[in-house]
């Protein structure tokens, strides 16, 4: 079986700062990591591979050359090889253009895939659109928000337990299929140092726009239906009041008085 795991590089903070002048994210000093939901996706892929044997896991990402870092990380965590789809022409891609490029790259480089696993969303953009869009473009059935992903005993179907508003659904689909996942292992994996070193010997295949033979107007900013006009942090709600006092006892008295005034305390 061939499992494709789509991964993304995201900033290693949840509270990114926005430059008030340019409206862009301040990335100085902010390291990048593998998106946590992509780590879950890899975890599901590794479990399936362990259960089935004879399975190849291929991590793929679209991004600038430094996105190679998350491919290395993916290979530490169990991917056998990886693909970096990188070209200046991909810059400024929205979710559709990203999905289109990734889908094209999957079709081009791994046409015989059986399963695509994608994290439900990236922690920076939070759109949760790219996975479903890839499924649409590739004409695949899709199962979203999976928390358990297993191959049935016949080996012909995937069975996914997915989160719904008031419980769970279990859905089965025939291969090839795309699954997005919202959770993985209870405790995150820790690769061995040998895994870390070995990952650096595994192949990273680079694919550029020219190889994909897609018209330029379908790529990057030109191929995007949407554009980010402005990025800004949400306005802080001032409902929180912080009691500042040099001495904890004074602060406690003030909080007591406040609570009594509002009748929270007798």
């Amino acid at each position: 079986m061939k499992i494709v795991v789509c991964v993304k590089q995201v900033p290693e903070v949840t509270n990114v700062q926005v430059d008030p002048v340019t409206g862009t994210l301040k990335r100085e000093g902010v390291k990048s990591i593998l998106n946590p939901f992509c780590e879950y996706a890899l975890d599901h892929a590794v479990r399936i591979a362990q259960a089935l044997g004879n399975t190849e896991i291929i991590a793929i990402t679209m991004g600038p050359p430094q996105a190679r870092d998350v491919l290395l990380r993916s290979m530490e965590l169990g991917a056998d090889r990886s693909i970096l789809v990188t070209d200046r022409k991909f810059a400024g891609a929205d979710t559709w253009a990203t999905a289109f490029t990734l889908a094209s790259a999957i079709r081009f480089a791994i046409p015989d895939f059986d399963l695509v696993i994608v994290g439900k969303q990236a922690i920076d953009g939070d759109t949760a659109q790219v996975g479903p869009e890839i499924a649409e473009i590739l004409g695949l059935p899709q199962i979203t928000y999976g928390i358990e992903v297993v191959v049935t005993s016949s080996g012909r179907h995937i069975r996914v337990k997915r989160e719904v508003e008031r419980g769970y659904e279990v859905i089965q689909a025939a291969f090839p299929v795309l699954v997005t996942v919202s959770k993985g292992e209870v405790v995150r994996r820790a690769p061995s140092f040998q895994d870390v070193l070995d990952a650096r010997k595994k192949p990273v295949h680079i694919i550029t726009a020219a190889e994909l033979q897609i018209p330029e107007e379908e790529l990057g900013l030109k191929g995007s239906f949407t554009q980010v006009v402005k990025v800004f942090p949400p306005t802080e709600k001032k409902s929180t009041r912080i009691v500042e006092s040099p001495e904890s006892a004074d602060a406690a008295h003030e909080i007591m008085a406040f609570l009594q005034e509002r009748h929270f305390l007798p």
Partner: protein
Amino acid sequence: MHEIQSKPAPQAEFSRVKCIQGFETIQSEYPVYLSDESKLSPKPFDYLFFPKNEAELAAVLQEMSRQNIKVTIAAARTGLVGGSVPQEGALVSLEHLDQVEAIFYDRSSGEWRVQAQTSVTLKGLDAMLRSKHFPDLEKSEDLLVRQNLEAFKQDPNSYFYPPDPTEMSASLGGSVVTNASGARTYRYGPTRAWVRGIRVFLANGEYLDIPRGKYFASPAGEFVIYRSSGEASSFFIPNYSMPKTKSTAGFFAAPQMDLIDLFIGSEGVLGVVTRVEVALIPREDKVSIVLFLESDEQAIRLTEALRADKRLQLDFLEFYSGNALDLLRNLQTSEPSTVGMPAIPGNAHSAIFIEMSFDPRAESPDYQALDETVTSCGASLANSWAGYETRELDRFKVFRHMIPETINSILAERKKQIPGLHKLGTDMAVPDEYLMEIWELYRSQCEALQLEWIAFGHIGNNHIHVNILPKTMEDLKKGMELYGLFAQKVVEMGGAVSAEHGIGKIKSKFLKLMFSPAQIDQMKTVKDAMDPQGILNPNDIFSLEGSR
């Protein structure tokens, strides 16, 4: 130069210093000030002061000297030997002296330095250095301070302050007066190695500014301090040799030593440190690796091999004994998420935890030396956990600290049944050549007495914390006797009875194992010269009874 002049502090009115009077009021309204992380109980004391600045601190010290009232100094209260737990008189909390004052490039040494007040926390400093965001400096009215900060921000490197005592909520000043150390002491040495200057207030309210490299003991071992009144006091430094290990037992002493080193690690009995200047170094990417092993003896052999391999530059080398791993395994069995790491492999009966430089982007990283050394001891890099992202390093750090925290919670439960029980944790280090011997002693004695025990800690510095977890008062008694035996053997090996926690009020009896009465008298002579009335930190390091 072995002579130094103390300066009078700016004036402040004593009556305006915030003061809480009366033990009952302090007990009921300010209970956190009654103890520190040692959980030692205080004896009744009368005053709790909160000076806002150095002038107010000086006013308090002058008034307490005038009234001959003893003064205990507290900052973050993270010490483990009761140093800041008052026994009488007054407690002075330095918590408001918490400003970062400058960050600047020192051209003569070619290093970036931070100057800060004593109560800036190590955690706070690290966060500011990571983000290069220093609120205190950004609003400074001093143009030079702002220019220096701007230059620091423009420097493309990231910097850090190397000392990393486990408790990062410790204050910078507290870490200086205790010469704090931690895992990274293996590579970077203790706090002492990074202190470039201090300001210290003497008991009479005057202060000394002591940059490193300016004031040295005379060839005869003498220092002279001139007060602003013209009076002079002189003293000779102790003539003992320091152990060839980490040590926080007693005053530092060395021929023609730097005066700054006398105050570093002196546990605040000579003066009150209000300002420190420390050096920074470029931050490197790191990898944390937990190597799982077959036995504790294999861990010791691997430690010796890793230390001996000069090709390797490890930041730290830490140890989990088999019984420490079992403790964590039990936690994982009851709740897998509590430990925050995958299941500890079943074949792991000991572990070594190392950290070293690592460039995640290197095309072909060369770790052949590490692989060879690990393999030569019968271990494998494949039987390990590794992490290098910041969140991974943080996760591994939590894992490293989980053992002492778990032990504390086990003892807290037992204490509910038997209130007299407490943990017995050793803090002793021996020279390199005695590592296996001391380990054999620890293991054989704990097993022979059938005590529950767990070992972990800074094996790279031969500084293994043996924690005895008594179940009964009889266990506690046996454990205390064993502790005394360990201390005696460690001293015989040329080691230190307190490698990093200090002496404080809890370990003074062990100081007597390490130093002769004459040597302790030499320390008291220094104390008497600096603090003639003996008002500072009473009962820390040595009892003042009998002081001259």
